[in-house]
């Protein structure tokens, strides 16, 4: 037969009942681990902030500068500051989720139903994130430009109107499915390879998975920042 770690379950959920709401328990459990790890890192790193950085502060500052540059480049000098925490949280949450899903040996923990993994391998999580991005760019555009925001739909010509409206639906759709598909596919590939050949062979796929995970986090954060930047962009006539 096969090793106990090498089993695969797809579409199995650990259901929690909250009132008359149903939740995917395994997603929340792993997301709490991810959030806990993030908060632990942040709390340890910011315990004593100094002008001459030491230890974890260096890492945190590197992350901060990386996210700042990303947000500034995509959103623009004027408003990137308001959206930096949101973009940064998206990036960190997705990145740590993806890497956590790949690096933490979740299979050692047995659940009655379903299995633990990256929270981003669940469609609920990615749609939640993508909808947050949609809300954010609407809010960013409306709060910055008022109803002039809707001029964006008819620029440069009114012919663009239907396409721009369709874009509002395709943006969250592509954001969520890209992330979900990539992470789930990575987990499946590694799982299948580990199921077939438990030793050595899955390693290249695992490395590729780590690479994909990082790239997906970067893509999601960059696109989110880009959409917000598009919404707050001022046309100069």
């Amino acid at each position, binding site marked *: 037969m*096969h090793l106990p770690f090498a*089993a*695969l*379950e*797809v*579409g*199995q*959920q650990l*259901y929690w009942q*909250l009132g008359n*709401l*149903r*939740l*995917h328990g395994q*997603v*929340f459990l792993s*997301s709490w681990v991810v*959030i806990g790890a*993030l*908060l632990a890192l*942040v*709390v340890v*790193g*910011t315990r004593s*902030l*100094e*002008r001459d*950085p030491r230890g974890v*502060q260096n890492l*945190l*500052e590197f992350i*901060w*500068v990386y996210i*700042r540059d990303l947000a500034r480049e995509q959103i623009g000098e004027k408003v990137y500051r308001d959206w*930096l*925490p*949101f973009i*940064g*949280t*998206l990036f*960190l*949450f997705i990145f740590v989720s993806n890497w956590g899903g790949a690096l933490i040996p979740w299979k050692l923990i047995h659940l009655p*139903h*379903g299995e633990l993994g990256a*929270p981003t391998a*669940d*469609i*609920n*999580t990615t*749609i*939640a*994130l993508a*909808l*947050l991005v949609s809300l954010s760019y609407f809010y960013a555009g409306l709060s910055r430009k008022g109803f002039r925001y809707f001029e964006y739909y008819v620029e440069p010509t009114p012919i663009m109107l239907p396409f721009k409206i369709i874009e509002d639906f395709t943006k969250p759709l592509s954001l969520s499915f890209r992330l979900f598909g990539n992470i*789930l596919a990575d987990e*499946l590939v590694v*799982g*299948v390879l580990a*199921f077939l050949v438990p030793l050595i062979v899955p390693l290249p796929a695992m490395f590729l998975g780590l690479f994909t995970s990082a790239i997906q986090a970067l893509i999601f954060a960059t696109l989110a920042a880009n959409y917000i930047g598009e919404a707050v962009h001022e046309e100069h006539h």
Partner: protein
Amino acid sequence: MTSWLLLAEAGATAGSPEGGLFDLDATLPLMAVQVVLLTFILNTLFFRPVGRVVEDREGYINTSRAEAKQKLAQAQRLEADLKEQLKEARVASQKLIQEAEQDADKLYRQALAVATAEAIASREQARREIDTQRESALTQLRADADKLGDLIVDRLLAAK
């Protein structure tokens, strides 16, 4: 565990009565709320304090660099000033030395002139004294000779 790699519906039927890959439920809004909360927490714990530290440092470096540039410019200006002063002082000292040399020369010449004049004067006086003494000696001698001659004449005349 034979149900690996089955599609959503198959997975759903194999496990619990519901489920599947695209099983949307209350996980979605709760996850959204969770992420929004995480955004606020990370903003307070991470983005704001670290941002402040990084930007403070950037500001500190910028102002330090500007200050250093200013100080360098000031130092260069001071150096130029001092060089100018040094040049002027050299010229002034050169002039002073020249003047002092000229003064010394003049004094030497004056002293020489005075000394020469004195020497000439005293020689003149000496000569004059010698002349008067010679004059008086000659007069005396002439008188004595006259007296002697008279005496000789008297004696010779008396003997005859």
